[in-house]
């Protein structure tokens, strides 16, 4: 139980742009807020949604602190480009591929605005419902649906741009 919460917090802080070096501090902050505010949790939303709301706020604070730190961009490796064009196959390079894909995902997410990034992370990566995402972001359901659609378009546009840059660099 604790472990699944900790993993949820950790990976989403990272996706929300908290630098690697600040992850543990940020995760500690989340759990301190959880600890302090647990008595207020009434079960109206799922625990996961409630925690995600806290993660969003803590990530925003840590991102502000890290503002100005240059993001290191590395060229997109050939094998990752190929894996995105054809079904990924299991093999010895799988771990490398996952690591590279995670790096590219971060690059794409960084290019989205906060709300779009959060919506994509919750719905398309964490696979929560749009209703839960809307609740965590404190927006209404209709708005969440239309913004999610815009977020998916933006995600694809940014990914396409990065892949083109990668192609051009080779």
């Amino acid at each position, binding site marked *: 139980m604790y472990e699944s919460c900790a993993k949820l917090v950790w*990976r989403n802080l*990272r996706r929300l742009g908290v630098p690697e070096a600040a992850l543990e501090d940020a*995760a500690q902050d989340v759990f301190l807020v959880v600890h302090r505010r647990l008595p207020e949790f009434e*079960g109206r939303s799922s*625990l996961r949604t*409630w925690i995600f709301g806290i993660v969003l706020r803590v990530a925003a604070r840590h991102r502000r602190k890290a503002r100005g730190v240059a993001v290191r961009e590395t060229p997109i490796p050939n094998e990752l480009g190929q894996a995105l064009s054809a079904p990924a196959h299991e093999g010895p390079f799988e771990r490398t591929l996952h690591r590279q894909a*995670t790096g590219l995902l971060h690059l794409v997410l960084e290019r989205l605005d906060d709300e779009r990034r959060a919506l994509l992370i919750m719905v398309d990566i964490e696979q929560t*419902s749009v*209703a839960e995402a809307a609740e965590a972001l404190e927006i209404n359901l209709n708005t969440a*649906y239309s913004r999610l659609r815009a977020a998916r378009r933006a995600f694809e546009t940014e990914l396409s741009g990065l892949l083109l840059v990668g192609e051009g660099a080779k």
Partner: protein
Amino acid sequence: MTGLELKAHRLVELARSGDDPSAGQLLSLHGAVAARIGAEGAIAASGTTVTAKVASAGAYVKGLVVAAAVATGAAGFFVLQGSQPSPAPPVVVQAPAPRFAPLAHATPAPAPAPATRPSSVEAPAAPARAAKVPSGLRLQEEAALLAEVQGALRSGKATVALGKLESYDRRFPTGMLRAEADAARVFAFCSAGRVEKARSAASRFVQRYASSPAAARVQAACK
């Protein structure tokens, strides 16, 4: 699904578990959180002991478990790993989580159907009025109707949900949220006890949206 959508989808699949912390990072986090909670308790109680620190950290983990139980009862969709199932679990059927909807982008924006377009068995003809509605407004209407479907499912009103889904089919035969509606139908059939209908709807869903992350959950809907 276009080539780019597929790439986006594959990227998400490849990267999904890439940000999980290592066992060492988890352990370190756990220790640090327990220490900070203990320190906070010390400030509050001014004169805490090691036992109090441990008790405070333990209460925090226990609190999470209790909160998870509350959450599980209130919103069964998000059962966190490790939480205990209730002794007699109610049949909680939630609206499916709309995923990286495979058709959301692949389907062209709803446009008036040309007169020569062959009619589809599964897609009833759109009322002429619907074709004139601006696409932004249409999406809002679709989303609102699906929100009603989800609401009905959450309240256990499967028949109402199915009625609303029929209405969705009539109003939005080429809807942008078609995948979400099709997934919701599977859950509604399950909730209504119409298992065979659910299975065939699930099978159609998997055929149409084979790469959807929701496919596995839809297939397991009645289990």
